[in-house]
């Protein structure tokens, strides 16, 4: 993993969570644009995972593989499912769900960074 990419992902998660939280305050449900935002965050996490995989192979970076890829899998699964689940709700709770999911992905990404550096 590389630090600039980590920062980009964390900022993207924070932005999505902030956007959804603003909707909570406004008593609005998740809109399509926010789902696109979630897709962007998801794509960034995929890019990050690919970069990590390449670094593991090319630089022989030591890492607890099963733990690391387990976290990657969880991080990739959370947002799409939560986004669909949130979009089905048409109250402000919809936005709460998206905000929680975005924060979760940010947290998982932070854990990935720790696991990456731990081994």
């Amino acid at each position, binding site marked *: 993993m590389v630090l600039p990419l980590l920062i980009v992902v964390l900022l993207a998660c924070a932005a999505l969570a902030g956007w959804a939280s603003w909707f909570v305050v406004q008593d609005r449900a998740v809109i399509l644009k926010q789902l696109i935002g979630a897709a962007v965050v998801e794509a960034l996490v995929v890019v990050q995972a690919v970069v990590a995989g390449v670094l593991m192979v090319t630089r022989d970076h030591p890492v607890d593989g*099963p*733990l690391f890829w*387990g*976290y990657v*899998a*969880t991080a990739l*699964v*959370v947002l799409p*499912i*939560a986004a669909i*689940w*949130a979009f089905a*709700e048409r*109250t402000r*709770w*919809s936005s*709460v*769900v998206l905000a*929680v*999911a975005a924060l*979760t992905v940010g947290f998982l990404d932070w854990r990935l960074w720790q696991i990456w550096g731990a081994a």
Partner: protein
Amino acid sequence: MADLGGGVSGTTPATAGGGRRTGTGFGRLLVTVYGILAFAAIGRSSYELATKFSEAPVAYSLSTLSAVVYVLATVALAKGGPRWRVVAWVTVGFEALGVLAVGAASAVSPDVFGETTVWSGFGQGYGYVPLVLPFVGLWWLWRTRPHGTHDAAPATPEPTEPTEPTGPTAPAAPDPEVR
């Protein structure tokens, strides 16, 4: 945040069984948090089973059991029909007892299970979410309980009692194989 949804405000339709939905309104968030915890528990237990099960079989069996229960609770709360409501009462009640029993056991004797589990230290490793969540879940099931005289769903968490994690995972009977 006054409107908790879930049919309480009358904005969502009641389920076929006469109960109010457990997966909408505030329940939408509850199911989300349960789902995230379920994924966390699945990830943890698969990792433990795959890489180091023999190191602490009791702790890692407990992790697997909790993962299964979290998945069941998530599905039950999301579905929310009369039968699923019973499943929800049992699984959420089981979690409440599990986190209290394992949390208390780990407080008395930190290495009782050989390794930490999701429920060790009352869910400390997960920001105490495993401690808070089942009680929120029980409150939500109670709040959305069906009205009427002949509802299938029980209105109290008593049915969860027999599923208390005694037996193989009982903290009172330390397994000599642990550690």
